[in-house]
């Protein structure tokens, strides 16, 4: 009994220490991220990565289910992965110590990748690749800020289409660039209304769905699913913007705020993500029947 307990400590103390240290390093940061996502208290750019709310626990779950295979992987003895791992570790350390928001955020996926490389080499990286990918794609950064100036054509397109739809319903809507004049009230399709956030979230959740259902392996399924996701996301966003312009133009301020920054927006997001599950199921049926017919 005594010896068994000793060997248990012997076997696992390093893992426990490693996980404990990682928790000490990054728990405050993750709390900060979640706080920013749930209370929308950091910045618009930060909210672009709110898919991390489900993505990060899913990544942790995947890493946990991989633990037996991880243990069985041989210690890495090649110099190359150690070198890359230690370089990455060095940069992650510098970024962490800098105390700058962007750099500290970025240090999280870097650190995790470095540890995988350092301990189990490229095989280890491959094993945890998808989980690491989910973490990296949920790490808040300033890319949304940098691409915002380039979404202008998309904004113009959305404004134009929304104006067209409103005109079909007999409303007096005039489009001028990214501005929609509905009953002489002005609605602006701002860069952050271009629907990129919902698009990113949809693609991220789509990625998780593909992995979960195992459809990841079919290349044509992947392509078709992501294309459909993009199309559905853009159409849904045009409909959303049309409703926003309609509410604003007809003076229904409450309804406007409900959909724009109230829980109506969350309902819209949930509906959109639900649609992805339906889409995945429908495509699956299509592909399964296709498979059976070819057999």
């Amino acid at each position, binding site marked *: 009994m005594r010896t068994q307990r000793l060997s248990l400590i012997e076997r696992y103390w390093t893992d426990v220490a490693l996980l404990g240290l990682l928790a000490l390093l990054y728990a405050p940061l993750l709390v900060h991220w979640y706080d920013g996502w749930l209370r929308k208290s950091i910045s618009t750019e930060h909210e672009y990565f709110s898919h991390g709310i489900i993505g990060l626990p899913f990544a942790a779950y995947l890493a946990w289910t991989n633990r037996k295979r991880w243990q069985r992987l041989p210690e890495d003895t090649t110099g190359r992965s150690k070198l890359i791992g230690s370089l990455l570790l060095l940069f992650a350390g510098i970024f962490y110590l800098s105390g*700058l928001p962007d*750099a*500290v955020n970025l240090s999280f996926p870097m650190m995790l990748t470095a540890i995988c490389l350092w301990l189990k080499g490229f095989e280890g990286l491959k094993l945890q690749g998808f989980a690491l990918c989910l973490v990296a794609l949920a790490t808040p950064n300033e890319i949304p800020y940098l691409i915002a100036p380039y979404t202008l054509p998309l904004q113009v397109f959305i404004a134009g289409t929304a104006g067209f739809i409103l005109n079909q319903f007999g409303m007096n809507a005039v489009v001028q660039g990214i501005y929609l004049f509905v009953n002489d009230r002005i609605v602006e399709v701002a860069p952050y209304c271009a629907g990129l956030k919902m698009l990113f979230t949809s693609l991220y959740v789509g990625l998780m769905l593909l992995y979960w259902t195992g459809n990841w392996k079919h290349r044509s399924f992947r392509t078709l699913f992501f294309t459909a996701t993009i199309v559905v996301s853009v159409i849904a966003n045009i409909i959303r913007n049309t409703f926003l312009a309609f509410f604003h133009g007809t003076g229904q301020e409450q309804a406007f705020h409900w959909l724009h920054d109230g829980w109506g927006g969350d309902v819209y997001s949930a509906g959109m993500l639900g649609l992805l599950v339906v889409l995945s199921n429908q495509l699956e049926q299509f592909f399964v029947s296709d498979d059976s017919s070819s057999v």
Partner: protein
Amino acid sequence: MLTAFSKSLRWQFPKVLLIVLLAGLVCLGTLPGYLAGGKWRWQAPPQVKVLRDLKELTKTGLAIPGWQTLKQKTQTIGEHEWLQQELSDANQTKATLLLLPQRGSTRQPQVEWTDINGFKGWRTDSQRQVELGSQESGRFTVQFLRAWTPLGAETLSQTYAVMQWYAWTNGGHPSPSRWFFTDRFLQWQNRRAAWVAVSLLLPIEPLDDVEKYRSTIEPLAQTVQSTLMTKVLRPDA
């Protein structure tokens, strides 16, 4: 037990080394935060030290050497309050200066030019980038364009020669991404690129060639930049 322990140490050397490194990182980078009761440096970027001067600027306006301010008011454009100054020089040349100083440490320049276009209902063309300034005072780039409001088939509203840029210490550029990389680079030295969005409007003949007015508007743009740098965007700040 000790021998078993030391054996496991040798066997797990890379892992143990990693633990030591991470423990060092915790001591240097994380413990100060925990000891401060959960205050972390990464919660916000370094403070902009001239925020108060920038706020003052919106109240007092910018006195530009060689130019007289005839009228001054705040003007809401898009979601932000701009400072609008009507200027005139000794030759009775008229110009309008629009300024939007940074309001908070996390406020970043974004779509200020689109905001102005929308607010004025402008059509724009002849857009090009012009590099101004000198080696000593720092070079900066502005976008130079022609803007007018189409009113109808016969009537044409005022046409303007326009220069726009985000000004910061020893530099400036119309593109937000340029500001972004300058700022992020400075953050590593615990400094920031405090910014002021500048839009300079020179009334010209209807749909005239803006190039003819370059010699008038360029010196004014230079003066605005250098005045901003001596008054608010000081290099020591």
